[in-house]
């Protein structure tokens, strides 16, 4: 990826993340602080580290990007954080939920849906393309096992990805999470080809 292309992906991903955080803030009625935002080339072998380390227990909300190009979105939380987000979205008292049941999984899926749709809408506005999110899948396991889902697809065609990642914090609560976008190479190429189409 050349410097020009990297600048475009950085700019559009940054706007996508900001839109997603704004909509998350509206959803939960609390201000959200973006703690960090980064875009970097990672070898796919390093992907589990972006989710807390291969052996760390994690809750992932996984969404695929389809349409004229493809990619993956994963929101990753440690299990305690995932319960906290579910409680917040369901308006349950903090610390009242012991495990991820169907209601909690549904709430987290909705969280992923809103954030992924917000992000992809910005990409669409910047390119005129219609990129579609899949229904969210909420998974709980080792981060390494969750990252296999993405790696098994991306490694078919490339050994690295220009991964966009943000870490955010709900201001009034001690809750944070990671929002990771892993585009397949074709997604970046298509975005670049259509960047002035919108």
């Amino acid at each position: 990826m050349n410097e020009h292309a990297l600048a475009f992906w950085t700019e559009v991903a940054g706007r996508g993340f900001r839109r997603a955080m704004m909509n998350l803030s509206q959803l939960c009625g609390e201000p959200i602080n973006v703690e960090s935002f980064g875009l970097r080339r990672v070898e796919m072998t390093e992907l589990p580290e972006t989710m807390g380390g291969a052996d760390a227990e994690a809750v992932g909300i996984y969404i695929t990007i389809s349409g004229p190009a493809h990619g993956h979105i994963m929101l990753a939380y440690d299990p305690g954080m995932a319960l906290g987000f579910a409680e917040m979205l369901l308006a349950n008292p903090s610390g009242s939920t012991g495990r991820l049941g169907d209601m909690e999984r549904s709430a987290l899926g909705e969280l992923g849906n809103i954030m992924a749709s917000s992000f992809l809408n910005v990409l669409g506005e910047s390119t005129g393309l219609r990129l579609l999110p899949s229904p969210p899948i909420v998974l709980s396991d080792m981060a390494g096992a969750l990252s296999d889902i993405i790696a098994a697809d991306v490694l078919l065609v490339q050994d690295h990805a220009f991964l966009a990642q943000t870490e955010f914090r709900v201001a009034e609560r001690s809750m944070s999470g990671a929002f990771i976008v892993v585009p397949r190479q074709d997604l970046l190429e298509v975005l670049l080809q259509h960047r002035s189409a919108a």
Partner: protein
Amino acid sequence: MAAHGSSIIVGLGELRTSTLPDDVLVCVGLGSCVALCAYDAEVQVAGMAHMVLPASSEGRRVGLESKFVDLAIPQLLDEMERLGALRSRLRLKLTGGARMINGPADDDRQRIGERNVDAANAVLCALGLRVHGDDTGGNRGRTARLYVASGKVRISLIGGDSFEL
């Protein structure tokens, strides 16, 4: 090979060997990936491959070729033979290959774990080898440890459950 005894992480698409008794070869957080653990007790040569995809014919052969089951297994066996192992003495154990996402049974992407296991068994069979123990499939992640001193393979799951394979 490590210079002294340690845990040697075998990352996505990698393979590692060791002859140091204090070493432990580890595949952490296997989901749909499969790990082949191979051990020759006679010479205490251990090897482990962490494979992501079933066949090199399905993808581009860029970067780590050992991400493909059909390329990784022969590479691992060759490397172990260079260290003095004999194929006929190898104890082989296979783990991983979970289905992390439930979906249509005919969706090849969602069957990737099952396909990895099938590919590993087919490659080993073609080489005239057989698996002596396996723990594959299901829908949970696993961590596999191969102890060079003993050849024992221990599988760990989320929540602290573990067992010897």
